[in-house]
C-alpha cells in the first residue's frame, strides 16, 4: 500500500507538498466538474472551497437541506493549536496528543498536517461569522476537553457543530447563488461510475420522485460521514448511512480499519425496545461530574439514599491520575465492566451515575467566597452552585430532563456508553484519494487521522481541515492531468450499466415482498454487532457474529417487506437499501476485528488485556492499517499499510 506521503522531515511535508503540487489554471477549472456526496462539515466546506476556486461543483445530500447534515449535532468544540491561552500548546503537541490518543494507529504525516491547518480553521470560521464563545475582553474563549492538558478547544456553548456547519452551509449557499455549485438535496448516491479505471460520475436517486439520475464528474468526493448506525442504536442521525462509501468500496475502494468504532461514555441510557436512537451528553460534563455506582451489587435504593461511603467512584479509584477525565474508550469500558459485574443502576441496570452534587457544592462555595460572605448556609451555597452549573451546562441538563423526565440538578444523571463515531472508513492516501483514481473520501468517511480512537473535539477539526484546506490543493494535483478530458456524455455504456445495476437492485428489493420489516432486520443486525463487535470483542463471538450476519443477509434478501413503490417518496425503500449495505459492512467489521488480535483504542479484544484488565497492544504484529479489498460476496482480501513512526515513539497509554 502506497500512501504517497511526501518525503522530507515531518514538519515540512505539507509545506513542500503545497509548493510542488500541480496547479490548474482558472480557465481550466471552469471546465472541470467535481461531484461531492454529503454536505456535512467536510462536504459543505469542500463544496464551498472548490466552488470559490472556480470548479463546477455538484453537491448531493439525502436530507431536505444541506444544513441538516449530522455534523450539526456535535456539541463540545473544535481543537486548534492556537495557543491563545499561553499554556504551552503547539502544532507538535496537538499532533502528539492526536497520535497518542489514537493509540498509535494513525499516520504521522496526515495527523501533523491536521495539526498544522487547525489554526487556519478557526480564522476561517470566525471570518464567516461563527459566533464562538468569547471572554469579556472580546477575545475567543477556550476550554480543555477530553483530558488534554492544554486549553485548545474553541466552542459555541453546546452547539459548536451546529455553528460550524451553518458557517460552511452559508459559504456553500453563497456558491450556489453565484452559480458555482449546484445543489441536489433529497438525492442519494447509489453507484459510482468508473470508466477506464478512473471515477467519472455517479448514479443518484431523487428521493422525492424515485427517478434515477446520471451525473458526470472528473472527480467524486465522498463526504458521507460515518457508519455508526450499523449498530442500529447510536448517536448518529437516523439517516446516517454507509451506502455511498459502501458503493465505492464495492467499486474498488479499499475499506480501512472498519472495526475501529468509538463508544462514547456519556450518553442517555436505553429506556426500552422502542428506542430508535441514543442521545449524547457532551463529554464536557465529565469535567465537573463524578461517575459512580453503588458498592453493593443490585442496589435498588434511590441514588440520594446511598451514603457516600457506599458509593464506588470507580474511575477515580482505577485511574487516580486522570480520574473522571480518562479518554472515551477507557471510560466506556470501565462503565461496561461495572454494569456487567452487576453494579449497574436504573431500571435496566445498564447505566451508571454522573453526579453533580459535589460540583454544585464546590461552585457554590466559590461563589460565596467571591461575595466575601463566610456565613452562608448550605442551602444558599447549593442554590448558588446550581446557578453556576446552569450557566455552564444548562442546555445539556435541559436536554436530559426533556428525555428522561428527571431533574439532574436534584438527582444524579444516568449515563451509559453508546456508539458515537467510526474511526474506520475508506482507505485514503495522503491526498485523500481512495484506491480508485479520482475518488476521494473526506471527514469521517475516511479512516485517516484518528487511529484507533478519536480525541474529543477532533472530528470537527478533521472534517473542516479536509474540506477547507487539504482537498483544494490535493485535488488540483489530480485534476491538472484531466484538463484534456472533455465531459463524458452520460449516455456512455458505463453510465448505462451502472444505472441498470441500481434499478435492478431496487426492483429486486421491491419484489421480495417478504414478511419482515426493514426496521426489525436492522434491529437484529444492531444487536449482533453490539453484543459481539461492540465495546469488547472476542474470537468466538466474532466468528459467531459473522455466521449470524451471513444468515441475516440471506433472510434480508428473501424475506424483507417494503411497502409502496419505487417512483415515489418512499422512506422505507431508502432505508432498505441502507440496511442491506450495513449488513455487508457488519460482516467486514467483524472480520477486521477478528483479524486484529490486539486491543488498541476503541477496539478491545478480551484475549489481549493486561492483568488488571487494561488494553494490550501488539505493535510488533499489528502496527498497520488494515485495508480491505472487496472480492465478491463474503469475500475480502486484506492489504496492510505499515505505519512508520519517525517522530513519535509509541508507548503504552497510561492514565493511572
Amino acid at each position: 500500500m502506497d500512501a504517497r506521503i511526501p518525503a522530507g522531515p515531518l514538519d515540512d511535508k505539507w509545506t513542500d507538498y503545497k509548493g510542488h503540487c500541480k496547479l490548474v489554471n482558472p480557465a481550466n477549472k471552469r471546465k472541470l466538474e467535481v461531484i461531492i456526496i454529503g454536505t456535512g462539515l467536510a462536504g459543505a466546506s469542500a463544496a464551498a472551497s472548490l466552488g470559490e476556486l472556480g470548479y463546477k461543483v455538484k453537491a448531493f445530500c439525502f436530507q431536505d437541506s444541506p444544513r441538516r447534515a449530522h455534523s450539526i449535532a456535535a456539541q463540545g468544540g473544535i481543537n486548534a493549536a492556537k495557543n491563545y491561552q499561553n499554556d504551552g500548546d503547539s502544532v507538535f503537541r496537538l499532533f502528539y496528543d492526536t497520535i497518542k490518543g489514537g493509540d498509535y494507529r494513525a499516520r504521522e504525516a496526515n495527523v501533523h498536517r491536521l495539526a498544522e491547518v487547525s489554526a487556519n480553521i478557526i480564522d476561517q470560521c470566525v471570518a464567516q461569522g461563527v459566533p464562538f464563545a468569547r471572554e469579556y475582553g472580546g477575545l475567543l474563549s477556550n476550554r480543555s476537553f477530553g483530558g488534554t492538558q492544554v486549553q485548545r478547544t474553541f466552542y459555541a456553548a453546546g452547539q459548536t457543530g451546529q455553528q460550524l456547519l451553518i458557517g460552511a452551509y452559508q459559504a456553500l449557499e453563497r456558491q450556489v447563488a453565484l452559480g458555482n455549485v449546484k445543489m441536489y438535496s433529497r438525492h442519494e448516491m447509489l453507484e459510482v461510475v468508473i470508466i477506464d479505471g478512473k471515477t467519472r460520475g455517479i448514479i443518484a436517486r431523487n428521493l422525492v420522485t424515485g427517478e434515477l439520475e446520471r451525473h458526470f464528474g472528473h472527480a467524486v468526493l465522498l463526504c458521507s460521514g460515518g457508519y455508526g448506525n450499523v449498530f442500529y442504536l447510536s448517536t448518529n442521525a437516523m439517516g446516517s448511512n454507509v451506502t455511498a462509501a459502501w458503493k465505492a468500496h464495492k467499486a474498488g475502494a479499499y475499506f480501512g480499519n472498519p472495526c475501529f468504532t468509538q463508544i462514547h461514555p456519556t450518553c442517555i441510557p436505553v429506556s426500552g425496545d422502542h428506542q430508535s436512537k441514543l442521545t449524547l451528553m457532551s463529554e464536557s460534563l465529565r469535567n465537573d461530574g463524578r461517575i459512580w455506582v453503588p458498592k453493593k451489587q443490585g442496589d435498588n435504593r434511590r441514588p440520594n439514599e446511598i451514603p457516600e461511603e457506599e458509593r464506588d467512584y470507580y474511575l477515580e479509584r482505577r485511574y487516580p491520575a486522570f480520574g473522571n477525565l480518562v479518554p472515551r474508550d477507557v471510560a466506556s469500558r470501565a462503565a461496561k465492566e461495572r454494569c456487567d459485574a452487576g453494579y449497574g443502576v436504573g431500571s435496566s441496570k445498564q447505566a451508571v451515575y454522573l453526579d453533580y452534587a459535589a460540583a454544585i457544592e464546590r461552585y457554590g462555595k466559590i461563589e460565596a467566597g467571591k461575595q466575601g460572605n463566610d456565613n452562608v448556609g448550605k442551602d444558599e451555597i447549593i442554590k448558588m452552585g446550581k446557578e453556576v452549573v446552569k450557566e455552564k451546562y444548562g442546555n445539556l441538563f435541559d436536554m436530559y430532563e426533556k428525555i428522561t423526565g428527571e431533574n439532574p440538578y436534584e438527582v444524579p444523571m444516568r449515563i451509559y456508553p453508546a456508539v458515537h463515531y467510526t474511526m474506520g472508513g475508506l482507505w485514503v492516501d495522503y491526498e485523500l484519494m481512495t484506491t480508485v483514481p479520482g475518488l476521494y473520501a473526506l471527514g469521517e468517511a475516511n479512516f485517516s487521522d484518528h487511529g484507533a480512537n478519536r480525541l474529543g473535539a477532533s472530528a470537527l477539526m478533521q472534517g473542516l481541515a479536509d474540506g477547507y484546506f487539504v482537498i483544494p490543493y490535493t485535488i488540483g494535483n489530480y485534476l491538472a492531468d484531466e484538463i484534456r478530458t472533455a465531459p463524458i456524455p452520460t449516455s456512455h455504456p458505463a453510465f448505462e450499466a451502472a444505472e441498470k445495476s441500481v434499478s435492478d437492485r431496487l426492483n429486486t428489493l421491491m419484489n421480495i415482498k417478504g414478511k419482515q420489516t426493514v426496521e426489525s432486520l436492522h434491529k437484529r443486525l444492531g444487536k449482533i454487532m453490539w453484543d459481539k463487535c461492540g465495546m469488547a470483542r472476542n474470537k468466538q463471538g466474532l466468528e459467531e457474529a459473522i455466521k449470524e450476519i451471513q444468515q441475516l443477509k440471506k433472510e434480508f434478501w428473501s424475506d424483507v417487506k417494503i411497502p409502496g413503490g419505487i417512483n415515489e417518496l418512499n422512506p422505507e425503500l431508502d432505508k432498505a437499501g441502507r440496511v442491506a449495505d450495513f449488513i455487508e459492512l457488519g460482516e467486514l467489521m467483524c472480520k477486521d476485528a477478528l483479524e486484529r488480535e490486539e486491543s488498541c483504542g476503541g477496539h478491545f479484544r478480551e484475549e489481549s488485556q493486561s492483568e488488571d484488565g487494561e488494553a494490550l497492544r501488539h505493535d510488533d504484529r499489528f502496527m498497520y492499517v488494515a485495508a480491505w479489498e472487496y472480492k465478491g460476496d463474503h469475500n475480502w482480501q486484506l492489504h496492510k499499510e505499515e505505519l512508520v513512526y519517525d517522530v513519535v515513539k509509541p508507548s503504552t497509554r497510561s492514565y493511572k
Partner: protein
Amino acid sequence: MEHYNMNLTLKVWRQKNQSDRGQFETYKVSNISSEMSFLEMFDVLNEELIQEGKDPIAFDHDCREGICGMCSMYIDGKPHGPWQENTTCQLHMRAFKDGDTITVEPWRANAFPVLKDLVTDRTAFDRIIQAGGFISVNTGNAVDANALPIEKAKADDAFAAAACIGCGACVAACKNSSALLFVGAKVAHLGLLPQGEPERKERVLNMVAQMDKEGFGACTSTGACEATCPKGISISNINRLNKEYLVASLVSEK
C-alpha cells in the same frame, strides 16, 4: 420517573403527493410507553401499518436530538407539540395521557408545499440564505481569529440568533405564514458581528426580497413565532431586521 402505558387515537394528515388533495386518517395505537418519543410512537404505528400492508406515514426526521431542524409536525394545533422550546423529536409521550386524541398536520404554508403526508418542501429557506445569508469570505482569506475583538454581549446576541435550526416552525405558527423570524435571526446574527458589516445593507434588502418572492406573508408582530420557536429565538430579531431594512433603504442611493 414513573412511566405508564397509554392507548391513543391519532388523526394524521395523509396526502399521496404534491398534487393530491389529502385528507385525515384516524389510527389507534395501543400500549404506548410514556418514555417513548413522539416519533418513536410514529415508528411503532408505521411498523404496524407495514405489517397490515398499508402505506406507512411519511414524515421528516433525522438527528432526533433537536438540532438538525428536519422534524416538523404540527401537533394539536401547535408546531412541535405542547412543550415549550422543543422540537417534535424531543417531545416525549409523557406529555399525553391515556385516551387522548392527537391531531397531526404538516406545516401549512404555500411556500412549504406538502410533498407527501407530513413531509414538506422547505428549500425556500435555502434560497433565502442564498440571497444574502452569508459573509463573503473565500477560504484562505481570513485574518487571525483574535485580530478583531468582539464585544461579548454582541457575540452572545449573535449566538442566540444563530441558534436557529431552520425548521420552519415560525412559519407554521404565524397566521400570516411569515418567515420573518427566520430571516430576522440570520440578519441579526450576521449584522451584529463586525465581519458581517460590509454586506449588511444589501443582505437585509436581498433576503427580504427573496422571502417575499417565495410567497411568505408579512409580519404583523403577533408573537406566535417566538412562542413556538424550539430554540427560543427572540422576536426582537425581527425588530432589528426592521431597523436594518429602514436604514438600508434610507441610505441606498438608488
